[in-house]
């Protein structure tokens, strides 16, 4: 996925959701399956806030990297999709 969240580091602050220029990151209740990315890695006991981010509109991600830049916990990595890399 263009942007991947490491839920073992994420604390659910919601800043990435707030600042994404394209409104493509949303919050979901922690512990639930990621409705879009099916990403259940890690447990969430360390997350104090009730929600965690996920990439809801994956195709609309601009790869601006702002979420990664501003994540206070450096929990976001940018992974380019194979069609871009192999074009």
């Amino acid at each position, binding site marked *: 996925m263009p942007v991947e969240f490491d839920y073992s580091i994420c604390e659910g602050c919601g800043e990435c959701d707030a600042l994404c220029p394209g409104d493509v990151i949303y919050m979901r209740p922690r512990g639930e399956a990621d409705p879009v990315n099916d990403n259940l890695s890690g447990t969430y006991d360390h997350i104090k806030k009730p929600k965690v981010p996920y990439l*809801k509109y994956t195709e609309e991600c601009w790869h601006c990297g702002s979420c990664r830049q501003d994540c206070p916990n450096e929990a976001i990595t940018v992974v380019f999709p194979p069609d*871009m*890399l192999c074009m």
Partner: protein
Amino acid sequence: MKMFTMSADVLVIGGGLSGLNAAMGAAENGASVMIVDKGKIERSGSIGGGVDHFLAYLNEGEDWDTADSFLQYVEKVGRGTAHMSIIEKTYCEELEDSIERMARIGNPLTQPDGSFYRTASMGQPGPYWINFNGKLLKPCLGNAVRKLGCKALAKTMIVDLLTHHGEVVGALGFHIRTGNFYVIHAKATIVSTGNTNRLFENPRGNPFNTWLCPYDTGDGQVMAAAAGAKLANMEYMRMTLLPKGFSAPGFNALTGMGGRFMNGLGEYYMEKNHPAGNKAPRYEIVFQSLEEKRQGRGPLYIDCRHLNEEDITHLKTTLGYDKDTLPDYLEQRHEDLATDPVEINISEGMQAGPTEVTGSGVKIDGDCASNVPGLYACGDAADHNRCVHGAITGGYRSGKSAAKFAAGRNFFADPDTVSTEERADEFIAPLKRGSGYPYRQLEDSVRRIMQENVGPMRSEHGLNTALTKLTRLEKHLDDMKVEDLHELMRSQETRSILEVGKISATAALYRKESRNKPYHYRLDYPETDDENWCGLVAVQKSGDAYECSFDPIKYVA
């Protein structure tokens, strides 16, 4: 769905680089300010993630480093696409203050040692490009405007401008998460919504993989036109060169540091075909690159292998300023600037200025005012403020002008358009509809029509076909169905994109010559005709159609 009413002296629609400078200009000149953005101002717009270049003369002593020399360069490259008098007012007069303003808000344009790092490219007589680290420019500006007391509405899309007896008196917006509406009364309104993207087919396949912000879809231009504003330079389809597969900026840095354009036969094709070689104006490089591809001499590359270690290091660092994720991209693609020629391609087309010094959009005067009282424009949404330097200087200028206009108004006028409740109901109809077309389907159609007929090669037949098809497609916009508020926003963007398409084709049809090829290349009028067509084509709404007029500019090559 709730409706809230708010008011401010100055409303800024679009909180990008120019919008935030406009907000500063208004606030520092006594106005109360409301900024509205579809994102959050700290990271919204085309340079939300960072930027690395600012075009300027600095009067440091050399001949080329003066306002006169700079304007001569603008005139030469602009080739009749801007009035020098307006560039003088909106850029030159604001330049010194603007450079100082960037420093005082916490993001100076200088290097850590206090000097300016300057490079030349694109036909410049001297190194006008200031290279700097702008990764925190938007956060610094966001902080500055909030400290000045400006209010910022995030995740809010403006739907319409509100007018009263031909004046703009505010706007109607909706919140992308809550669905609430905002009626914002303003004494002066500034449109700073950037250029129009997602307008042409994207060689990368994904319409959101764009050079400038894909969420900038001409909303402001279209609203301004609906309120009676003239738009100019809308016929130009801007293109640039980018790393293959990723529509990322970085061209300035690569050419500025001395990158050489190479084709699949190993020929340095710009050095072969143009007197300025790799430092030729962007449209010349795009034109030649298109030719190389057309004639089957791709793939195309930018070759930086000859640069020394210090330059390569600087380049690699700088690329991350202009696009935060570009170094990651090259790494994940196993491409190293130092040892490999990096594959490039021509970008998607977009509605934007035909050069890096002349713009496209709402037609403004030296105070950034449109022809509609109460309506201003700046940045890429305006015709005279191009690029980072134009956004910062012109933005501030528009704020000052708007504040002055607002100071002369001691009341908020009621809008005389259809009731805002009715408009809100009409706006959310795609959400309530039982079935219909996904916005993406219609938007893909717009891109196909534009690419085929309003693309890098045009003709009267093609342009008329574009208008016929876009008009036909337009009738189906009311058949769109969306699943949620986010898609509702996208469907509204689709409407703006289609409208810009119509405006663009109309202007392209009117200009019976070619200029800044391939940005406006008429196969039926392939030569540049300075005698008859040196100047701006202005487009204005007249009933349901658009009418063109010509604003001549005297220019001697």
